[in-house]
């Protein structure tokens, strides 16, 4: 017996495949989230920062594993068609081709990209690293006037009419009047605004980078990554963030962001000139009473011996005006360091005297995360 039933209409209403696909994507996002630091330490993210607010993370499909035999040296299978033993059906790839192919899809493998918002990623990192939110300076920054709603009045601008409250008044009045009119002028209620001083939400971040001959490409890249995430963390908190980029060797210059990381010089190292330039910038442009100031300095720590005193003095002045000053010392693990470098010594001294400063070592990718965590933990303490 054959029975043929008509199409059942509900089949189209629900897709099990799509449901399980969404679940897969959810798992992918979780997996991506767990490995974010590694993904983000890639360089692609750094370039195009600022404007490009999303990051494309290439991911493979998750694989549900099963027991499988190891791949044999050569795979055998049954086929059908012409050809004699020894005939080549499909030529091997040339060695040189391998590279050009690596970006494509091999073996018909499908890859896809997850687009993630940079802000979302930064939020994840903050969660992941359990970093505290930055707090604006409490002192001296309460002068930012702001209007907030407070209270009601019978008179006011049309645009501030509170309809709900007005109708409430009308209802109250009508319930005690005989032959009430729907609404009278007395029923009107307007929202009022009051001027309040709020903590300043402006921030300025000054990055200073040692570009002397002793800083190599890798060290600068680490510094750049650290700066990037520090900046993202600060942007997360303040509504308006200004950035200043300073580079120095024996002399200091201000750069814009695009040139900053390309800058290099072969001169010796005089840190104090960068601190001095930072002081000038603060004095001329960023009044410490109105701005939350952050200063980050990256160097390998090798400063000219005779510059110690001027550097310490300038830094002391600078640190006193900032919410926080951080120093990252770059250098390969292999570098033989018999003692603290001079800059590190200076920072430690300042720290000992209770100024909001901190320092961290940066020798590999993972250190970036540790350093970020240390700094943002410190800022909480120093707050």
């Amino acid at each position, binding site marked *: *017996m*054959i*029975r*043929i*039933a*008509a*199409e*059942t209409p509900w*089949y*189209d209403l629900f*897709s*099990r*495949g*799509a*449901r*399980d*696909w*969404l*679940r*897969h*994507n959810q*798992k992918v996002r979780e997996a991506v989230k767990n490995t974010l630091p590694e993904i983000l330490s890639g360089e692609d993210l750094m370039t195009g920062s600022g404007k490009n607010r999303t990051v494309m993370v290439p991911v493979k*499909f*998750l*694989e*549900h*594993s*099963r*027991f*499988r*035999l*190891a*791949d*044999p*040296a*050569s*795979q*055998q*299978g*049954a*086929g*059908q*068609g*012409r*050809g*004699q*033993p*020894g*005939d*080549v*059906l*499909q*030529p*091997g*790839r040339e060695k040189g081709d391998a590279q050009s192919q690596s970006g494509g899809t091999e073996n018909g493998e*499908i890859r896809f990209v997850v687009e993630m918002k940079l802000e979302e990623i930064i939020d994840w990192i903050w969660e992941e690293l359990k970093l505290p939110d930055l707090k604006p300076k409490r002192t001296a920054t309460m002068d930012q006037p702001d209007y907030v709603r407070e209270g009601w009045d019978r008179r006011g601008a049309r645009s501030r009419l509170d309809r709900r409250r007005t109708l409430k008044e009308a209802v109250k009045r009508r319930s005690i009047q005989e032959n009430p009119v729907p609404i009278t002028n007395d029923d009107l209620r307007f929202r009022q605004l009051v001027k309040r001083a709020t903590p300043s939400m402006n921030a300025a971040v000054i990055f200073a980078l040692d570009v002397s001959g002793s800083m190599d490409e890798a060290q600068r890249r680490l510094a750049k990554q650290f700066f990037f995430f520090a900046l993202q963390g600060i942007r997360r908190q303040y509504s308006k963030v200004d950035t200043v980029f300073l580079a120095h060797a024996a002399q200091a210059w201000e750069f814009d962001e695009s040139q900053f990381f390309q800058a290099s010089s072969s001169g010796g190292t005089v840190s104090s000139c960068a601190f001095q330039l930072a002081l000038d910038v603060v004095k001329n442009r960023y009044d410490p009473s109105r701005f939350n100031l952050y200063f980050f300095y990256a160097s390998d720590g090798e400063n000219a011996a005779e510059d110690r005193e001027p550097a310490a003095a300038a830094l002391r002045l600078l640190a006193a005006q900032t919410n926080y000053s951080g120093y990252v010392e770059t250098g390969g693990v292999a570098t033989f360091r018999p003692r603290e470098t001079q800059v590190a010594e200076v920072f430690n001294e300042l720290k000992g005297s209770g100024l909001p400063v901190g320092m961290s070592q940066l020798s590999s990718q993972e250190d970036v995360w540790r350093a970020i965590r240390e700094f943002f933990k410190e800022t909480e303490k120093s707050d």
Partner: protein
Amino acid sequence: MTELEQYAASIEELAKRLGLDYYNVDFEIAPASLMTEIAVYGLPVRMPHWSFGVRYIHQLVRQSMGHSKIFEVMFPGDPCRAFLMDGNSLAENTLVTAHVLGHADFSKNNQLFARFHEMAGGNIVEHAAAHAHRIQQAIDKVGMERVEAVLDAALALESHVDVDGELHRTRYPEFVPAKPQSAENAFQRRFRNLPGTAEAAKAEPGPVRAPVPPHPEFDLLWFIAHYAPELEQWERDIFLMVRSESLYFYPVFACQIMNEGWASYWHARLLREADFLPQNLYLSAIKAHSDVVRPYAAGQETALAINPYHLGFTLWEHIVDTLGLARAREVMREEDDFGFIRNFLDRELAEKLELFVYEASAGDEIKVANRDVNAVREAILAPKFNYGAPRVAVTEMHNDGGLVLVHEHKSDGRGLDVNRAKRVLEYTKRVWRRPVRLHTVSDRGEPAELTA
């Protein structure tokens, strides 16, 4: 009555006259989206798992590239359930109806199918839907994460069932009979009869607890379901559900070439003898037939895979021509693909079909390696051994509940893919809840132990 129903009724009459014997078939016209899902899940309604989502996307991509079109899907049972795609033309649907009758005949009579039918009854489609429902209930109760962990393990071990075993299999006997005391020899008898105080009669030895497992156990799903130290009832349930679905899929897997060939043979023959079909309908149906039953894609001269429709169809035509229909039906009842290929794919046929063995080496170069019929047979059958999975057995359960798995690398020829095996062990450990270890060999053939 629609046109299709009229043709279907006439085809059925013809089929009965030609000796096809099958349970009722319920056809349903289904939208393409459901057909895709059936192809992915293997059943119209099946448990949720993210791995199906991945297959689903692969399938969608393949379909959008035009590599595969699903005309029909058929589920053996009583009644058989068949789904026809709503985009099929009338000619295609007529062909597919005849094709499904071939499957229905095969699945009622072939011993592997009949055995499962006897054990599980004829309504696995409903069972699977009930399984899906129960799993959904479990998700509602204990949450997605936990259910998923169990499904990760159970589905990863899906093929590790004893295909010759019973669907409802009881636990091992808990005790083994004590070893019978060896008969007294002459010396012992004389010694016992010596004068003096008689020795106290030895207490009857109590029953001896049987080791678990008493022999290497290849039915991993069953073993974990019954012997995992802390499995909860719903977890055990899931393992047994996956196992019963796996046993249901086995005959389809093990008889694919025979089954598709048989159905193709019958759709061709039924259509050929259906004098009631209009000419143009017959022509377009036969056109659809030759699109499906062909060795390689249009415009190509070789294929690196065997089309089971084409191979099976050719073999069955040959068998019916040379040995007669009665003998063909006997073969259909008794064999699976192993017997079918080894007994009936002879040298002449292999040459006529231009079958060969190819070899793909590390540089991705693919060469024709061999045209020897024995090598060809084994290459066709190689992916089918042991349900397509490596031979892994439980050999031991430690006192602390630790599980020991052994991979029979000798019969498989080489070791396991280490990374995948490790992940499977991790899945397993989450339900076994005790250490799990696996013995296999490395690339160089040295013993290797993986643990999770």
